[in-house]
């Protein structure tokens, strides 16, 4: 029984381990995944929406919001998982060190973590899709395509989060990332309101960052349309992965395997 796994699949037992841990804590996790967007949809979608008294980009506000929350939730879930949870595994529980005494490489572990961040995003996207469908806020069945896109968005933000994890000395460090990057993205990429009325600088910054592109891909699918410039948006998300992932691997390697 000394046969080794092929390189393509060595990440799988690491991913599977994370999945099994998640399943043990599935109650609170799903509650958060469903409960939180539900609150936003009810409070802001109906509450704020009724104040607005007008349609946003031709949509009821609650519909506009639901299609934005799907993306922001993918971002938040993957970011949290790639920072707080990954850091716990790397530096507090020594889980990755334990894996490195088995015939796994650090790349296997990091690939598995990124794939896992994507998986968690898919789960949270699915939860919101369910809630939104139940509330009648989804146009048609093409919305199911947000699931694979949710994986890509999760992998993108997960890769970025892992770079933060690679240099973090404590959990508090992650607050910088949330305050300086995630929250501005959340507020200014088009989740809660369209950004075409915003100053040029804000719009340009939003278009450099990934969330804008995630929304550009996922919102149309929820409202019965098809996204445009698909290749551009996919490329931006892909580029973030291609740049962030090697950096994370190099920095974590230096940290654990000097």
């Amino acid at each position, binding site marked *: 029984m000394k046969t080794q796994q092929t390189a393509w699949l060595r990440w799988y*037992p690491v991913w*599977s381990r994370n999945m099994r841990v998640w399943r043990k804590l599935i109650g609170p996790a799903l509650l958060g995944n469903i409960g939180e967007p539900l609150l936003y949809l009810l409070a802001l979608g109906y509450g704020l929406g009724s104040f607005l008294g007008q349609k946003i980009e031709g949509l009821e506000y609650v519909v506009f919001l639901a299609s934005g929350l799907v993306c922001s939730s993918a971002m938040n879930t993957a970011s949290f998982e790639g920072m707080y949870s990954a850091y716990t595994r790397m530096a507090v*529980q*020594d889980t990755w060190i334990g*894996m490195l005494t088995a015939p796994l490489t650090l790349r296997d572990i990091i690939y598995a973590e990124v794939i896992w961040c994507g998986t968690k995003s898919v789960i949270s996207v699915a939860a919101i899709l369910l809630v939104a469908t139940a509330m009648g806020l989804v146009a048609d069945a093409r919305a199911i395509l947000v699931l694979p896109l949710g994986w890509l968005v999760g992998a993108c933000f997960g890769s970025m989060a892992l770079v933060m994890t690679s240099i973090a000395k404590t959990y508090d460090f992650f607050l910088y990332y949330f305050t300086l990057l995630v929250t501005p993205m959340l507020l200014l990429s088009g989740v809660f309101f369209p950004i075409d009325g915003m100053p040029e600088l804000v719009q340009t910054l939003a278009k450099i960052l990934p969330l804008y592109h995630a929304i550009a891909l996922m919102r149309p699918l929820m409202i019965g349309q098809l996204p445009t410039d698909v290749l551009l948006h996919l490329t931006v998300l892909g580029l973030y992965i291609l740049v962030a992932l090697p950096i994370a691997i190099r920095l974590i390697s230096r940290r654990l395997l000097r």
Partner: protein
Amino acid sequence: MDTTDPVVNIRSLCKSYDGQRVVDNIDLQVQRGECFGLLGPNGAGKTTTLRMMLGMTPPESGELIILEQPVSQGSYQVRQQIGVVPQMDNLDPDFSVVENLRTYASYFNLSGEVVRERIQELLEFARLTNKADEQIDSLSGGMKRRLTLARALVNDPELLILDEPTTGLDPQARQLIWQRLRELKHAGHTLIMTTHYMEEAQRLCDRLAIMDHGRVIVQGSPQELIDAHIEPHVIEVVGNDVERCKAQLAKDESTRFESLGESLFIYTHNEKPVIENLCKFTEVDFIHRRANLEDVFLKMTGRDLREE
């Protein structure tokens, strides 16, 4: 694989961190089926040497051949046949005892019926059968160590590497681990261990090396080291009159003295005259014993504290 080849073959191995030599040109060989000890004060280079053996740290220069495979960084394949008991437990707190074993087995691409059987055997080996479904945080320190040892055996490794296996354990737990390690050796596994417990090294190791400042100072079986490097008898003296004792006994040139606080250590080939003399002093207490590995270790590495 030729069974007479050494399991570990290290020649002229070097490693530096920030310009400082942490492992300085060491030569080590570990034969199949032996228990080899790596001893040394903090910062001697033991853990760095182990990490290089596992392919977790790149060597700077020199030759490192484990189980007939040359090892450099990224050589994860060699770990398929090695079991590792790390210094700090890194068990999965979210899993039970048996789930920890199954998960670790999955990293070796092991699953199925054979693994299930092996896990049952390992649970018995570690005396954890009735704890199989317990969560990790309900286990005592000794149980966690036993589980870590069982986990290291899940891939039935030829070589087992243990970094301070019984540090922090109570005497019963240590005895059990020692027993198990002896069983593993008799079953044909090769063991490499680092330890700070000289008693442990003397009991378990067939051969050992003492490292300091990155170099191997001495190598050999415990008895060879004791015979070669230290006087056979040690008398420890405590009491009010220790200084006067020392002055009196120093006239005999075949004895060697070391003072440590209020204790006097007398090392000698000829214990009878020393004991006779000591009996004349009423205000001291003394113990006579044979020299052991700790005496060798302290002589080789000194009694000063090492801050890393």
